[in-house]
Every structure is written in C-alpha cells, then in structure tokens.
C-alpha cells in the first residue's frame, strides 16, 4: 500500500472509510483505539477529517477524539515518510551502543527525532523498548523487528529505503 501512504486522501474518501470503520467496530466495548488504529492502517495517519464523524458515531465530543489522538505516540496527524525506522532509545539498548547508533543515524541524515528525509523516503522515530533487549541495539523498520543493528546494518536499511 505504499501509494496510499504517500498522498493525502480527499475528505470524501476519509468520510466513507470512516463510516466503514465505525460500522466494523460498533459492537466493541470501548471502540475508540481500535477505530483510530484502523484509520491509521488505512491512510498511514489519522486524518483530521475523520474526527467529526467519529465523534458523532460514538456520541462523544470532537475535543475528546482529538485529545485521544494527541495523547498517544502512535497516532500521527500527518503522513510519515514512505518508510518508518524506529530506533530503540531505552536503557538496555543504550548499554549496547544504542546512543551511538541513534546519534550517527540522525547526524548522517541531518535529522532530528521524528524528522523525514527531504526526498520523503524515511522517517526516523524513537521507540522505548521493543522487547529485544538481549539483542540490541534494536530497531523496527516498517513494522519488522531487527536486532544487533550496527552501523553497517543501518547503512543497508537506509540504502534499501532510499534515504
């Protein structure tokens, strides 16, 4: 689905998809997080245009929906790069050279955390533990886990992603 993630959907597209997603989750107790995950799954981010219909569908305020979207690190309000590389910043990875890996990667791409390369290929994000603490430094590339990531491995990842 890389094409759908690389452009912004039209308001009509968002509204119709939101209706489908609301219907699919109507039976759940506490459906808002599953709904937002499904929105992000569809569009690569949670579009502003879905807030109103979700609020109406769940009978809650728009501000509440917006508050939930902004509370969680996972939900993006704008599309990311075509590939997302998450680098673990937590303690066990730091003990295995994680800081150097992260610093070098950011410096090499000229990015801060959450930044996207100018060609739109790669977004670099921090993550706090992937449960790979015995084989760090750990990273996740488009949802795929990687262990013992050294500089050479990161080079290969970035090259493949077109950074």
């Amino acid at each position: 689905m890389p094409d759908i993630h690389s452009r912004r959907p039209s308001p009509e597209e968002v509204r119709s998809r939101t209706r489908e997603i609301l219907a699919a989750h109507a039976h759940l107790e506490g459906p808002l997080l599953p709904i937002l995950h499904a929105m992000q799954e569809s569009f690569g981010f949670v579009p502003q245009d879905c807030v109103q219909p979700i609020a109406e569908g769940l009978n809650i305020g728009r501000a509440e929906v917006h508050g939930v979207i902004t509370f969680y690190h996972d939900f993006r309000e704008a599309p990311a790069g075509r590939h997302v590389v998450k680098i673990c910043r937590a303690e066990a990875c730091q003990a295995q050279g994680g800081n150097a890996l992260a610093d070098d990667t950011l410096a090499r791409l000229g990015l801060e955390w959450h930044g996207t390369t100018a060609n739109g290929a790669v977004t670099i994000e921090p993550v706090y533990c992937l449960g790979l603490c015995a084989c760090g430094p750990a990273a996740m590339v488009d949802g795929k886990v990687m262990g013992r990531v050294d500089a050479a491995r990161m080079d290969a990842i970035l090259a493949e992603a077109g950074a």
Partner: protein
Amino acid sequence: MKVWLPRDAAARALGADDVAGTLLTQARARGIDLTLIRNGSRGMIWLEPLLEIETPEGRIGFGPVTPADVAAILDTPEAHPKALGLVEALPWMARQTRLTFARCGVIDPLSLADYEAHGGLSGLRRALEMDAAGIVAEVTESGLRGRGGAGFPTGIKWDTVRKAQADRKYIVCNADEGDSGTFADRMIMEGDPFTLIEGMIIAGLGVGATKGFVYLRSEYPDAIEVMNAAVTIARDAGLLGASVLGTGPAFDMEIRVGAGAYVCGEETSLLNSLEGKRGVVRAKPPLPALQGFMGQPTVVNNVISLATVPVIFEKGAGFYRDFGLGRSRGTIPLQIAGNVQKGGLFETAFGLTLGEIVDDIAGGTRTGRPVKAVQVGGPLGAYFPRSKLDTPFGYEEFDGQGGLIGHAGVVVFDESADMLGMARFAFEFCAVESCGKCTPCRIGAVRGVETVDRIARGDADAIPLLTDLCETMKDGSLCALGGFTPYPVMSALTHFPDDFATTRKAAE
C-alpha cells in the same frame, strides 16, 4: 526430519525467517521430508536463531544459525561447528526451574494438541471442579504475587473482585510490558499463548467474570499476531465461548492493541485507554478491583501472573509455594539484558543474588570490560553498583536496598556507562511519557533534565537542587512514573558520584 526454529520476535530480529526459507529449499533439494515447526524461543537469545533437530536421544541444537550454515547442518549435523548437543542438557536450560515457561520453546505455540500433550488444560480441568472461593484460595495459598511490578498478592486481589456484587466483571491482562530490559510477557505470548488464555479463564472462573481483555503494546506485532490466532483457535475448540470446555460458564476474550504510551502500563491508565480515553492515571480509590473497566469490578494482572496460574492448578499451590525465598514464593522469569555475554530468559526460584545472575549466569559483559552498574526493574528501578551485587533476588530484599525487582528485567552496563547521562535519560523518559496529571511529574521531569545539564556544565550548586526535586517528585506524584523516577536518578548520583563530579573538577 522434524526441526524447530523459533518464530519469536528476537529470533526473527536475528534472521530466523531467512534461515527458515533456506531450510525449506535445501531440504527440498536433498529430497528430505522436512517438518518445520516455528516454536517459541528457549530464551537463549545469544544462540538465536536456534535450530533444533529431533533425534532418538532428544532435540539437538545449533546456533546461532545463518542461512549459510543450513546445508552443512542438514548433511552432517553432529560434525557441525555450531552443534550444541542436547538442548535440555545445556547448562542454561538444566539450571533453571521452568514452571511458567515449561512449554515455551518446546511446543508448537498454536497447536492446542501439543499444548495438552505437555500438561496444558489440566489446571483448568481441576479448576472447573472447584468453586469460586476454592479457586481463589488456591491462588492465595500459592503465594503468587503480581509480576507486573508492585508485587501485590494475586489471591487477595481476586478475592476482592470475587466478593464484589455486579452483573458484569472483567479480567484485564496487562501486556503493556514497557520496561526496558523486559521481554518475558512477549516471549510467553509468542511461545505459549494458550497458557495465558488458560490463566485468564481460571481467573474468570474464580471471580465470576465472563469477559477478558489483553491490552497488548503495539511495539509487539509478533505477539499480537500469535495471541489473535490463539484466541480464534481456542474459540473454535470450545475453550472460549458460551461454555468453557462445554461444562463451565461463559468466558470469551479480545486482544486490544496499545498505542505507544508507557504510562498505559499503569493499571488505571490502561483501563482508561481500553475504554477509548486518554491514558491518564486515575486516583485510587476506587480500586480497579471494585470499579475498573466500564466502572465494573475488574482483575488487572500482568501476563506472567496470569500465565503462572495454570501450573499452580496443575501441580498444586503447595508445589509452587515450596520454591522461593522469604515472602517471594515460586519462580521468577529473569530477563537478562544489556551488555552481557549471555542474555535472555532464565526462570528460577527467587533467591539468587544479583551477582550470581550477572557474573555467573550471564557470564559478565559482552564487551569483556568490568560491570559498572546493573539496573533492575525497568526505567523506574535503581542502578546497583558492584558493591550491592550480593542482594538476593526477592521483593523485600530489593526494597531494603532502595531498589525494586519490578518485572524482573536485569540490565547490565560496563564501565563505559555514563551515569550522569543515565540520570538525564530517566528524567527525559519521564517527561516524554508523563500522563500530565500531576505537576511534580510533568514539570519536574523537564526541570530534572535542565538540572542534570547544569551539573554536567560543572555547576555544583545544582546537585542539592536535584536532590530536592527528587523529593518533590517522590512525595507529589500520583503514580510510580513520577514517584519512582527519583530511584534511577538518586541511585546514579549516590553510587557513582564521580560521574557527577568530573566535569565540575575539570571546570575548576
């Protein structure tokens, strides 16, 4: 030929899928009829991907295997340089007491038949013959305490929910496992998911709940996949649904995915998140046991607490209780991580000293340099210097040393660690993850980063400010995120004063 290769996330992160692909093609090329089972991990992460081959004597292991090793292993297994011999006889395995993790890495995680053949469901069958009070009494009798961090007696929590009057009650499994250095929840969910399901059903029987949720962090895509598949299989087999195993009451469950917030591991924040709200911590009382999910009585337990329930019922409370030290009964799955020779999961009775764990079991640091500090219990746990490595692994014993065992993650640092940097990180993490409800946590964490930076610039006056700030956070925070961040900070400052002084001396 029957072989096993883990589908555990750590094994996959180290290339297990490529090895699996090569195994299949190389076997086909040799006309070998290969049965490949993607098992859980045995927990020897330094040997992953660990390939096991069935022999008449037992399963022999090879590791860490790369695709290039596969052909030679298939041709002349015993002669291969990565041959390890019988897996169960490896010292790491033989020294453990595997109760909760008995099946992890052994069985096909998604085969209910394999699960039953290895003792699965016998605990549940026993529980189905007991009344609710008897089930809860068995858990209380076992001495099981919450493995999520606080160490609260599980039976007492269950009894509160059992006695509460309500039309609906819930079992919520806390699978948010956000602590750095921990992966036991992930491993059991990927390697033996039916154990967790069985534990949740027994909890439901004990307290009168008919619905369960697993709140599983989004950072664990593999665990999410396995748990969802396991729930579907359990439902199709009649283990979950209108009547548990056709004779019991109703119990069903759902897997819910978190959204990247550490604080949502705190039980009340988790409940808000499950309800579709911001993951802000709730004041207690009311206890979740009385007013939890949707305001109804709710058991919130960690994955390992719940996944340990089946073996307690299978072998009896007394059997479980006989392991351990002091008021820490049974076994604890240690997760050994960071800069170590041998990292992974090691389940053992409480009572080993931290030094035995770090020097003996883990074999010291991977870099070969001396151990400088060990952080136990995740990002809110204290840093232990070498001089405190004689502390025995137990709830009270760690508390007595100003630490906590938390979810039993042990993270080892060698002498290159910069403890001022680690203190700064503790504040930074707290600032990023604070739910925002209390000022001492929300603002204090940001001030903490600034204060550590002042110390780093050589400003000695900032040290008492740091101490005061930690006191304020300890006293004025609603939950342990703000309240315990002072532990890693103050332990770093107290035990490694040189790391806080060098720059100042240099500046003078």
